């Protein structure tokens, strides 16, 4: 049963990722991205990281995609793009991504696959919420503080970026 679910969610994720790239309308891309995030969240549930699955939906689908849709509609681009692919870009994309695929697959398959033990034999530590608090407030205490400061800085940065200052209209 989990195998079928894995294939389902993997297909959902990859298909909607492709849809993000090939859709000509930015709103459709954002909605495909949303579907892809649901698939990723399902994969997280299969990996026993329930908290991260919920956070993925809350933070990404709730905040990030909503922000994307808001900006797309604010800027109101007229039905997508005029010319989608230029030829050199397409060639570069195909070559670059082919190299990336070959490198990654070589890395993964060269050892006959990474010899991970069966999932059933490993304790799913990510399933327990207590472990998150334990780690975040001991080992990762400094990163938590730094990330909090980063959020504050980002908020100030966004305010400064979107505010209009007098007398700076002609600064190029």
């Amino acid at each position, binding site marked *: 049963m989990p*195998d079928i679910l*894995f294939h389902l969610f993997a297909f959902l*994720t*990859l298909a909607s*990722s*492709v849809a*993000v*790239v090939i859709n000509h309308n*930015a709103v459709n*891309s954002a909605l495909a*991205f949303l579907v*892809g*995030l649901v698939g*990723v969240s399902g*994969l*997280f549930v299969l*990996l026993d*990281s329930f908290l*991260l699955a919920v*956070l*993925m939906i809350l*933070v990404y689908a709730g*905040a*990030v995609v909503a*922000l*994307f849709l808001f*900006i797309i509609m*604010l*800027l109101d*681009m007229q039905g*997508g*793009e005029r010319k*989608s692919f230029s030829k050199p*870009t397409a060639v570069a*994309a195909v070559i*670059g*991504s082919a190299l*990336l695929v070959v490198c*990654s697959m070589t890395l*993964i398959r060269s050892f006959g*696959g*990474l010899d*991970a*033990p*069966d*999932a059933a034999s*490993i*304790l*799913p*530590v*990510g399933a327990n919420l207590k472990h*998150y608090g334990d*780690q975040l407030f001991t080992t990762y205490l400094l*990163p938590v503080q730094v*990330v909090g400061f980063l*959020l504050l*800085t980002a908020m100030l*940065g*966004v305010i400064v*970026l979107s505010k209009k200052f007098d007398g700076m209209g002609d600064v190029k």
Partner: protein
Amino acid sequence: MMNVGLNEYLTVAVAMFVIGFIGVLVRKNTLVIYMCLELMLVASTIAFVAFSRFNGTMDGNVFVFFILTVAAAEVAVGLAIIVALFRRRQTVQVDELNALKN
């Protein structure tokens, strides 16, 4: 039936990363490019969680925690920059934003 293990999850992560990479190279709309960047970030989180699950440790999960936080901050700043850019240039197509070219 084939048993789903670490390699299958990593394959999904790699495929998603590559799709996002192609999107960044091919698309011309800044907002869609930004969405493809997010796609690559999400793909890396799949790899993190899969490694963490099959290693039996917490570190990958906690790292994804931080990635989520940083991604939220990054999106807020990036979209503010795009809006500021649109205000000045009235376009978000990357082939028209070529002030540094030549």
